[in-house]
């Protein structure tokens, strides 16, 4: 009888979904207000009382998530069921578009971050391998064309990369921005790692399985050139934080398409990083400006690899990089500027590097450690 009641109640919840949500939100708010008042009555300051109330209440998102999981029909609302649902839909979608599966999973994890730690995630990942492989297969044409170039790239030092401009340009023009950027970036990072004697290096990219990062390589890179909002960014960071990776890879992310404001993008990183678990290792992040024309890829790959800031000679725009959120991992402007090449005509280029906190203001920096101030403008000799 009780099971029937629960089932009926869950069916009813399908119709009352939003009302239930707003009811819970109101109850939580009342609860927090009452807890805050209790602490105020004990003599706490308003800020301290609010913080104490939040602490005693526990994770609001977790409560809402658990509450949501208990409502509706399990086949519709269980994270694993949702994952499978999206997975099947995505397979169909793959016939029309690339990247759907990865985005679907990212959205799923953004909405259900707890799923990453649960057993359904493991099985879902197995399921997703087929999708990702399919996506990869669809990209193989491009990859095949790029491979000879990439192999060459691995044998070259940075100073001669520009010589590859021609073949890279033609290959990238066919592959599109994402594929071109990812492949050039991966190749360049490998090249850099070898060049700096940090080999072995591992790299993977958006849409490809993250398994290569589950290694002991001291230099790992996760390229994710396409993300849309803070939720998706949180999911990407969660992937980088996956305990199975031993150490987080360096994240290379494209600047948000919808937001041309670097300070806002940095603030988003700060917020996401502030939500990471206490004691989480420092996270290397490089943000790359976009849009960039295909002819920019060779330069971009090299620049990403060196975590450099270099002036664009393509649209009169500067490429900006924000490296090592919340730490002084980039060794400073001098270190960066040393890699900046001279313009073809031999004239010095104006270069500017930016670090955590400078554009968002000291009070808005949430990271435990602020980047060294390497913001300056100068002309390399």
């Amino acid at each position, binding site marked *: 009888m*009780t099971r029937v*009641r*629960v089932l009926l*109640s*869950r069916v009813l919840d399908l119709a009352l979904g939003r009302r239930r949500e707003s*009811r*819970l939100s*109101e*109850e*939580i708010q*009342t*609860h927090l*207000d*009452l*807890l805050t*008042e209790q602490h105020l009555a004990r003599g706490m300051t308003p800020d301290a009382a609010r913080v104490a109330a939040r602490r*005693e*209440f*526990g*994770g*609001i998102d*977790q*409560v809402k998530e*658990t*509450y949501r999981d*208990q*409502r509706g029909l399990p086949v519709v609302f269980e994270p694993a069921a949702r994952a499978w649902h999206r997975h099947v839909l995505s397979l169909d979608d793959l016939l029309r578009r690339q990247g759907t599966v990865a985005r679907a999973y990212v959205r799923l994890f953004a909405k259900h971050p707890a799923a990453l730690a649960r057993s359904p995630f493991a099985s879902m990942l197995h399921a997703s391998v087929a999708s990702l492989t399919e996506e990869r297969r669809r990209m193989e044409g491009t990859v095949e064309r790029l491979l000879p170039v990439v192999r060459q790239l691995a044998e070259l030092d940075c100073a001669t990369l520009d010589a590859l401009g021609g073949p890279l340009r033609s290959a990238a023009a066919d592959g599109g921005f994402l594929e071109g950027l990812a492949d050039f970036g991966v190749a360049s990072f490998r090249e850099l790692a070898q060049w700096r004697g940090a080999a072995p290096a591992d790299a993977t990219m958006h849409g490809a399985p993250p398994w290569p990062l589950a290694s002991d390589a001291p230099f790992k890179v996760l390229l994710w050139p396409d993300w849309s909002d803070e939720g998706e960014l949180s999911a990407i960071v969660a992937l980088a934080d996956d305990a199975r990776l031993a150490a987080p890879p360096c994240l290379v992310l494209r600047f948000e398409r919808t937001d041309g404001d670097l300070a806002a993008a940095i603030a988003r990183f700060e917020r996401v990083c502030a939500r990471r678990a206490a004691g989480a290792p420092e996270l290397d992040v490089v943000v790359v400006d976009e849009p960039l024309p295909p002819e920019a890829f060779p330069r971009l790959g090299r620049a990403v690899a060196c975590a450099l800031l270099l002036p664009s000679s393509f649209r009169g725009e500067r490429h900006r990089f924000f490296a090592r959120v919340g730490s002084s991992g980039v060794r400073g402007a001098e270190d960066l500027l040393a890699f900046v090449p001279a313009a073809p005509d031999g004239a010095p280029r104006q270069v500017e590097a930016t670090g955590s906190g400078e554009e968002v203001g000291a009070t808005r920096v949430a990271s435990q450690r602020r980047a060294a101030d390497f913001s300056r403008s100068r002309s390399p000799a």
Partner: protein
Amino acid sequence: MSARDEVPYGTLDLMVLKTLAAMGPLHGYGIARRIEQAANGAVALNQGTIYPALLRLEQKAWISSDWGTSENNRRARFYTITAAGRKQLAAEAKLWARTVSMVNGLLEGES
């Protein structure tokens, strides 16, 4: 063992039912406070976990709820134990006592 233990798994529903049976209609905050008081500080309750438990109990029709006004004149959802809930509480209390007695007997026998 830590000074404040987590709520033993599976016992929160029983605690909520017992609180509502003893105290009458209460809102979520009141239930959480009462459980903490009754535990005399020995239990570390993440108060937010009360709400999924309340939903669970309501789905089973062991409690019902309605909007009301709190002692501080706030709109709050008040929960009341139902007749079915009282029956369930009696059954679970018996089961709990039997379980505790059995485990105690086992532990004493082992020592």
